[in-house]
């Protein structure tokens, strides 16, 4: 797995103990557009299922994901799509 995606997986796994986690690198769809860094690994989709999301609204769920990835969001991640579910949803 590529470097940034691997770091994202490690950070999310540690913070949220997901029962399912899929990270997709969408950078190729954005190559060359304003603000897209060279070398890819900038645009991602995170699909994550975790017990931590149960009973939380969408904003709260996204905040948990954003918090887990805060360092990477400041440095490497240019755009992040999030699909956050609790088990059974």
């Amino acid at each position, binding site marked *: 797995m590529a470097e940034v995606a691997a770091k994202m997986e490690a950070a999310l796994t540690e913070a949220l103990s997901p029962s399912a986690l899929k990270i997709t690198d969408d950078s190729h769809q*954005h190559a060359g*557009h*304003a*603000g897209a860094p060279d070398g890819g690994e900038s645009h991602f989709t995170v699909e994550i299922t975790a017990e931590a999301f149960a009973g939380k609204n*969408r*904003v709260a769920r*996204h*905040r948990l994901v*954003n918090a887990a990835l*805060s360092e990477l*969001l*400041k440095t490497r991640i240019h*755009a*992040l*799509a*999030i*699909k956050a579910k609790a088990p059974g949803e």
Partner: protein
Amino acid sequence: MTDAATLDAIKKAVTENDVVVFMKGTPTFPQCGFSSVVAQVLNHIGVEYAAVNVLDDMDVREGIKEYSDWPTIPQLYVKGEFIGGCDIIKEMFEAGELQQLFKDQGLVEA
């Protein structure tokens, strides 16, 4: 850190407009796919909204992230309350929740 004047300007934009979106580009010429989606959803619903192009002002671009402790753009606010970014707006729209929110707030015809 964002200076107080910028945060005040953001607060003013958020409280003086019933619906305001902070986006990259404008509703007519969005500069980012995520911002474009939110503008399209709002256009489709037919709600009146103000748009702030964060690319016009680097202070606002960073300040809005601090304002709501939300690291990405676009950001939608309704009656001063932060509603969400692109994914949340899209999900709420698909579930009919966003339309309901605007109806409940009297911003579109019920």
